[in-house]
């Protein structure tokens, strides 16, 4: 029990190379599923313990904190760990049937290996309390996600992966520079220790430059407008299961790291009062929301449409951060979670559609509301969440976001957030109309409902968006605790 924080990382990390050794596709998948489902269980235990007893600190290899690498679990990253691992597990349960159509069988074990490594990287970035460790795990997750994306059936998956590799590496190197400069100023890599030591050197130009490099690098990784160019192609051409996994987890973890840097390392005072971070983030977030939502409306490829929608949704998360208030941060954190569920679910539903149709073009989706009623109903529920209709999880995010804006008398921002939801309405409605009120094309009339092995995981994830739209004490409640601790208001 005491070693839980490190087990969470080591178990999938060790399992990944074993998958290469096993090779036999069914065995690999069975083994990986057992391994991956153990992660949310461990994460849930961690979250429960953190909420009961406060922050857990774990020294890797027994080397104490400022010198050795520390894993530090508080309410915020326990929450992120839980939903990232849960969605990772849910999508992998869905994957076997989905990749059977999209990835040659000879590569299945490599897919599983990369998948486990990617999850390891994401969880590592989240759990670690050491700056350099963040970089290492970031690269583990990035490299494996380049490989995962390149597995897509269409050859454009290759160019998309390459483009992501270039931009992702530039972003990661920026982060490395930032970490280096911070290390130069403070002589430590431990986050908590660094936060202490940075207080003496705020205002030194090196710290400012470090902050700039870090935020630009992270903005690239989280696809904050205008640094989102890698994302649409990567999401559109990756295999369905990969898109669902990456869309649900990857950008959220980058947002988490930004939160960690801004609030736990640099501190609110430095980031907002000295630097005026809100004056940069707020306009970027708003412009991103509007531009990306508008571009989404004109997409024919629905996976690409959802990808642009993701760029817009990252805007909402960053907008919440820019308020630097409890409600704003609660909105950001809870939206990380809600959006992970919604987008994960939507891309899983797209996977069901691709499984039957072999295409995700809007034209081919005509009449699909009749031929694949369950899939499409799930899709619509997910879509309603993106708009922020009540009863879905998306509504809860909007609620906190607007409350945060109103509290600071930012009327215009609140109004813009509301208006932007209507753009989401337009792009969702466009698909609904085609799917329900047009006749299927000649060749697609015989299409039947997706198999249960795809529908059940999709249904669970989408069902969760409804559940967390009503029962919010496990999502917004925990997010609030995390927000308060980030702002130093409790414990």
């Amino acid at each position, binding site marked *: 029990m005491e070693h839980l924080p490190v087990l969470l990382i080591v178990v999938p990390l060790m399992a990944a190379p074993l998958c290469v050794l096993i090779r036999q596709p069914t065995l690999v998948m069975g083994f990986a599923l057992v391994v991956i489902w153990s992660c949310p269980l461990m994460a849930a235990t961690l979250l429960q313990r953190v909420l009961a007893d406060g922050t857990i600190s774990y020294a890797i290899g027994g080397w104490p904190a400022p010198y050795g690498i520390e894993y530090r679990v508080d309410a915020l990253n326990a929450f992120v760990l839980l939903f990232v691992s849960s969605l990772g597990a849910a999508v992998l349960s869905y994957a076997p049937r989905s990749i059977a159509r999209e990835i040659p069988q000879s590569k299945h074990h490599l897919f599983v290996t990369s998948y486990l490594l990617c999850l390891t990287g994401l969880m590592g970035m989240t759990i670690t309390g050491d700056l350099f460790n963040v970089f290492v795990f970031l690269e583990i997750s990035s490299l494996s996600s380049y490989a995962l994306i390149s597995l897509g059936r269409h050859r454009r998956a290759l160019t998309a992966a390459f483009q992501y590799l270039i931009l992702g590496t530039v972003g990661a190197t920026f982060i490395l520079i930032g970490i280096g400069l911070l290390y130069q100023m403070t002589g430590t890599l431990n986050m908590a220790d660094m936060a202490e030591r940075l207080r003496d050197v705020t205002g030194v130009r090196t710290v400012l430059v470090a902050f700039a490099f870090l935020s630009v690098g992270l903005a690239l990784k989280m696809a904050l407008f205008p640094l989102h160019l890698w994302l649409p192609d990567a999401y559109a051409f990756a295999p369905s299961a990969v898109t669902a996994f990456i869309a649900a987890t990857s950008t959220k973890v980058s947002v988490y790291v930004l939160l960690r840097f801004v609030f736990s390392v640099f501190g609110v005072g430095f980031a907002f009062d000295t630097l005026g971070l809100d004056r940069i983030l707020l306009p970027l977030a708003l412009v991103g929301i509007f531009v990306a939502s508008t571009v989404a409306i004109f997409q024919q490829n629905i996976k690409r449409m959802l990808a642009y929608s993701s760029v817009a949704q990252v805007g909402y998360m960053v907008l919440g951060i820019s308020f630097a208030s409890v409600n704003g941060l609660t909105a950001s954190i809870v939206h990380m979670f809600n959006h992970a569920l919604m987008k994960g679910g939507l891309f899983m539903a797209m996977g069901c559609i691709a499984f039957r149709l072999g295409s995700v073009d809007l034209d081919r989706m005509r009449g699909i509301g009749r031929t694949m009623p369950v899939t499409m109903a799930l899709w619509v529920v997910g879509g309603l969440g993106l708009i922020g209709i009540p*009863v879905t999880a998306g509504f809860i995010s909007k609620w906190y976001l607007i409350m945060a804006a109103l509290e600071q008398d930012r009327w215009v921002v609140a109004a813009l957030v509301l208006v932007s939801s209507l753009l989401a309405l337009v792009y969702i409605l466009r698909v609904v109309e085609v799917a*329900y009120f047009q006749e299927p094309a000649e060749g697609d009339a015989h299409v039947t409902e997706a198999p249960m092995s795809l529908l059940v995981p999709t249904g669970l994830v989408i069902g969760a968006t409804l559940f967390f739209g009503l*029962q*919010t004490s496990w999502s917004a409640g925990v997010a609030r605790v995390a927000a308060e601790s980030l702002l130093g208001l409790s414990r």
Partner: protein
Amino acid sequence: MSPSTVLLLTLALPLVAAVLTGLFDRRPNVREATTLVAGVLTFLVVASLVPDVLSGLRPEATLFEVVPGVSIAFTLEPLGMLFALVASGLWIVTTNYSIGYMRSHDEGHQTRFYTCFAVAIFAALGVALAGNLLTLFVFYEVLTISTYPLVAHHGDEKARRGARVYLGVLLTTSVALLLPAVIWTYTLAGTLDFTEGGILAGKADNLTLGILLALFAFGTGKAALMPFHRWLPAAMVAPTPVSALLHAVAVVKAGVFTVMKVAVYIFGIDLLASTHISVWLMYAAALTVMLSSLIAMTKDNLKARLAYSTISQLSYVVLGAALATGSGVIGGSMHIAMHAVGKITLFFCAGAIYVTAHKTEISDMRGIGRVMPITTFAFLIGALSVIGVPPFGGSWSKWYLALGAIDAHQSILVGVLMVSSLLNIAYLLPLPIRGFFSAPEGVANPKVKEAPLFCLVPLCVTATGCVLLFFYADGIYRLLAPLGGQ
């Protein structure tokens, strides 16, 4: 069963009906029987709570906490009781009518129709029973979404365009105006519970309250206050039972119900009366009454004319709320029920004429009274009730509204009520007059050919209802009396 269990049962019944109708896709008879049984049960369950509410009890039920201090919660109070009775009662009648209409018209996608209809009723009941603004908002949106497939029912380009306007206006207003109003109220008052006497007194200055009231009044797009009324005529593309649902049973009634509820339980009529912040709303409502009546006169399409008539009648309810006097509130609330029964009769008749004689334009309906005497007679009764002539139900609500206007010292508004009644006569009565007194074109003595029985019986029932409501309005008055502080 405790009253709060009964309350939840009321909501569960339509939802169960929705699931079951979905399952009986292949067996239309079972499917429609299910809807009917669910309708009757729902009505009985709602009605069983009437004695409790009359005796002053307010049954409550709380489900889950959505944001700190605000849960999905239900409270039954007089106004909600009335709306729930109207919605569940008319559901039974409308189902009967739908069976006749949809079958004789050979409509497609009937299962989707019945399922969405049941979900819409579920949402309307949720609005009626909502214990706080958030719950109300949630069900308000569910109602919008669940009626979208009904409006787009035919699926052709025209239907899709109409449905797009429908969804666009309703969602835009609710998300862009109503939602911020709700959140703002929450930040001001710290609660969203519907409380007698309101929750906003002393919480903000008059200007803020005025803006808030405007956000609520215009944000409730379903109340069709001009200039947000476009969705109602656009939704005319839907099959007639759906129009009945929109105009009488659920949708518009949910809108004016929301306005009334906000006026009484969020602002409180004392606050509205003492600060005069609702004066502009009276005139906005009066303007909508007059303008839409005038537009109605220019429409030859029967359903379009009825649609504008609805817009005008809805503003009576908004007017009642804005008057902020006891009689005004009672009159407005009563009008929800009276107009529902009257207007549904008119729509049933319009649908019956369309199904049997395939006519949609009023100018083509000469002599229709000789072909369809019962239908035309029912139309006459419905029209007279909407106009407000005794002995029909509509006269009472107009009476109390006029009293309310006098109490509020708004003599101009009394005049508006009078003039608009005259306009009602001018646009509603031509059909029965032409129907009975002009000779039909072509044939001298046409055979009587009424609509199918499933259509005919419901419209007779609602027409009878118009008369009964006149004589039993006392019950409604006693139910609503606490609202007016009497």
